[in-house]
């Protein structure tokens, strides 16, 4: 089922909209900003960097113009993204966050291990920051690496309230680099995100501009014969599902940003040939997974979600919402290289440049053609050994197929499918990246340096299914929305295993606050330590958690509109 479709960014007015204005600045209100610190990055046009351990952050609505239309963004210190906060492992941070909005706000420090009262989730860790008030976050940094922060209040994250949080290690960095850039990817819409959500509730395929059409079908008949083309369509049509539903919200409304710059603005990082450059990729999007590559350069992944991994050399990686990856590149030639981050639905891309001199640029690739979701994305392992998927991938050993336990609550209106035999392999880069001729990172390539933080075997398992009804735009765990659910209890001090089964055809990056998620391979052995684990369609993954952080924590899908629709739980460690 490898149907390929042309991209739909062809017409010129759309292109201009998607790419934004060359001069449209995302960093407004520069006067509010502090001078750059000693850690200031080495090229002009960089995000503001605040260093040290004492930070004053003002949250306000700030006029921006990203697409050619003036809009208000919700900003930290007047810019989108907010300033890069650069601090040192072992220090105690004090962050005074003032709310200059008319509504409550919050900042969550994504991936940071801290006391739950400092975690910044309104209604769970604290009451939120009321208009006109200042909340002082104070916590010790016990970790290092690339992290980020964002609002946890309604849709403020979509409106620009996010930024990078970089923690330098006490010990010398394992991968010392000559240059160090944050590359924060995000999605911006001129539409009010509350309206985007309401629109999805009315017509969930509203933003999908790659719906299968009758001419597509005729073409499939010509290429594959009528019976095969009919059978393929029938499968989707019987189930009332869409093989091009990748991210719900597309470039129909989004402009994809790199460090706040639209593609036409071309964020640029400078280098001298022969230098070693560390790129800290952060996906601060609300709804967009990105496939990132730098044509002409190999990337060496050295950290995932802030945690060092055994270096692995790749051409391309998929970064799910809220994940971070640190890569090292060593350009030798005196030329520009394009940082290319296409959205998973191929409706658009974020783009920037690494260049020896400002103003240079390299060719920007076309977005890849759309590859429809395959049988394995619908039926998991059941579809894998067969010839139905043509992806040429060997299936997992069927003898090891794990049992799946659906919850009683998974048979209501909020659930549109059950995967009874999910795939468990981690070596699948995911739809659209399979067999694309490039070496693409998979979770199977990631091995945390130093192994697990807790050698204990998990005492028990909590199985949760990622569920949804795309037609009604309902999202949940086990078919139960947050507002109908009880908290999930972790016994303090226990080591437990979370089993996630994705009973949907979408990717869901699942984020547990306050504690690490230690992803396991299909045999239950430690693989990689992360704060956000992307679960592919029809996939089953497991990870171990050490419940050493007493308190109340958020646990949710990091697709913002999925979270708001109820794919969310409160975890109580007690």
């Amino acid at each position, binding site marked *: 089922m490898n149907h390929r479709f042309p991209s739909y960014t062809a017409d010129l007015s759309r292109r201009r909209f998607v790419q934004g204005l060359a001069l449209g600045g995302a960093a407004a209100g520069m006067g509010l900003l502090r001078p750059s610190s000693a850690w200031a990055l080495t090229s002009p046009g960089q995000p503001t960097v605040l260093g040290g351990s004492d930070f004053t952050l003002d949250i306000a609505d700030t006029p921006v113009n990203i697409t050619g239309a003036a809009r208000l963004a919700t900003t930290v210190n007047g810019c989108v993204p907010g300033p890069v906060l650069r601090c040192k492992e072992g220090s105690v941070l004090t962050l005074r966050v003032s709310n200059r909005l008319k509504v409550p706000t919050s900042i969550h420090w994504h991936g940071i291990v801290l006391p739950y009262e400092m975690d910044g989730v309104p*209604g*769970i860790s604290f*009451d939120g920051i009321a208009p006109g008030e200042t909340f002082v976050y104070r916590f010790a940094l016990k970790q290092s690496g690339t992290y980020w922060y964002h609002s946890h209040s*309604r849709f403020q994250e979509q409106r620009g309230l996010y930024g990078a949080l970089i923690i330098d290690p006490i010990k010398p960095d394992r991968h010392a680099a000559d240059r160090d850039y944050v590359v924060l990817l995000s999605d911006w819409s001129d539409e009010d995100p509350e309206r985007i959500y309401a629109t999805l509730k*009315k*017509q969930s395929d509203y933003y999908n*501009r*790659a*719906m*299968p*059409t*009758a*001419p597509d*079908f*005729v073409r499939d*008949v010509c290429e594959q014969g*009528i019976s095969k083309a*009919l*059978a393929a369509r029938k*499968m989707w*049509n*019987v*189930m*009332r599902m869409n093989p091009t539903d990748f991210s719900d919200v597309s470039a129909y409304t989004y402009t994809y940003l790199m460090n706040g710059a639209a593609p036409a603005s071309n964020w640029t990082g400078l280098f001298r040939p022969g230098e070693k450059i560390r790129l800290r990729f952060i996906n601060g999007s609300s709804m967009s997974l990105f496939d990132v590559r730098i044509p002409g350069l190999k990337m060496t992944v050295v950290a995932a979600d802030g945690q060092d991994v055994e270096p692995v050399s790749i051409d391309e990686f998929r970064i799910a919402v809220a994940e971070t990856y640190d890569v090292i590149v060593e350009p030798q030639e005196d030329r520009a290289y394009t940082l290319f981050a296409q959205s998973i639905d191929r409706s658009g891309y974020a783009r920037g440049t690494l260049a020896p001199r400002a103003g240079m640029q390299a060719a920007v690739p076309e977005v890849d053609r759309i590859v429809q979701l395959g*049988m394995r994305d619908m*039926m998991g*392992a*059941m579809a894998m050994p*067969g010839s*139905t998927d043509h992806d040429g991938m060997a299936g997992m050993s*069927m003898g090891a*197929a794990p*049992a799946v336990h*659906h*919850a*009683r*609550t*998974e*048979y209501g*209106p909020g659930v*549109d*499918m*059950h995967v*009874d*035999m999910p795939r468990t392999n981690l070596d699948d880069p995911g739809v659209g990246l399979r067999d694309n001729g490039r070496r693409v990172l998979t979770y199977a390539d990631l091995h945390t340096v130093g192994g697990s933080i807790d050698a204990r075997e998990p005492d028990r398992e909590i199985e949760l299914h990622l569920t949804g*009804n795309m*037609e*009604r735009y*309902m999202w949940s765990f*086990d078919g139960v929305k947050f*507002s109908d659910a009880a908290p*999930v*209890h972790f016994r303090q001090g226990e080591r437990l295993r979370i089993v996630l089964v994705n009973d949907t055809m979408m990717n869901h990056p699942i984020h547990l606050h306050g504690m690490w998620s230690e992803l396991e391979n299909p045999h239950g052995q430690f693989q990689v330590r992360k704060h956000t684990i992307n679960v592919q369609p029809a996939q089953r993954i497991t990870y171990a958690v050490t419940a050493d952080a007493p308190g*109340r924590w958020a646990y949710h899908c990091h697709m913002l509109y999925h*979270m*708001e*629709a*109820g794919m969310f739980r409160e975890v*109580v460690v*007690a």
Partner: protein
Amino acid sequence: MSLRDFALTIASRSWLLSALLFAGVSTAVAQTAPASSSSTSSSSMSGMDHDSMPGMDRGTPAAPATAAKSAPTKGAQATQDMQSMDGMPGTDHASMPSTHSAPAPTAGSNTMHHASMHSDPSGDMSRTRMGPMQGGSAPANARSADYSDGIGYGPMHGMDMQDNAPQSLLLIDQLEAFHDRDANGQSWEAEAWYGNDDDKLWLRTEGERSQGRLGGGDIEALWNHTVATYWSTQLGLRQDMGQGPNRDWTAFGVQGLSPFWFELEATAYLGDSGRAAARFRAEYDVRFTQRLILQPELEVNVYGQSDPSRRIGSGLSDAQLGLRLRYEISRQFAPYVGVVWADHYGRTADLLRDAHQGAFDRQWVAGVRFWF
């Protein structure tokens, strides 16, 4: 209409007949047993028994483990299983009968049961049982979704989430001028709703105006209750307007999305003096491009007894088939042109002929569709 859609229409014709049958059965039930809505609708729906339909497998708890065991080892099994869904138009409609009293949608009794598994309590993974990929009912050994150990929420107000927030929609599906053999006129078809995922207030109206007079029309106010993934029940009132005396009805029915993406509504009506009626409506979108969409629409009306003052005869009264080709300037605004064939049958046709009107008519239409 593309070849595909033509083929699919053929494939689902048997189902359409079933739905019509259902409408008829509802009418009959409604005439004889004006009971509470849920019992009436469930009894009427049970008339739609698809157990005998080909391609479906009754999933019983004792489904042989051997068949299930072999499934995962056969590469072709998946395809076969998907193809076993071919016989499916209709399977999901088994979920329609679920009424509020049912703890969960009950489609499982006759939903497609292809290879799938859940563990048996012994944990022996080789002995697995297949469940439905969509719908179905929870197996006896399904796990609980409650991991709280009795711990509740803290004193804080909880996340400010949107998962239960009411939403609203106003859809003007057809607002058009028509030209037929006798006259020009205007007609409309619209719906609006307000509510959350579970319950909505749902308004529907349709009607036409010609030669400056309201020719006929109705408005419905319904409580729309979600009962299954793609199906809702509707309970409420309908008032007919236009020529003749206005009639009031109690309405109950189902609406939802059937396999192959047909938007369906089937509603039974009870009026005073033992009047009964049923209406069935189906819509489909044939997408030529992302913006150019052909929408076939079929509406059929059935009446339990004649109402000559409104020129309605008992039995199958009229059917309309419309084809509207719209261009979505935006998703929310689309002008269209189309053609509508309207035919009247049986005693209704006789009444029209008595009034020197034709039973069959073809209209050319042009209008706009928009929503917000």
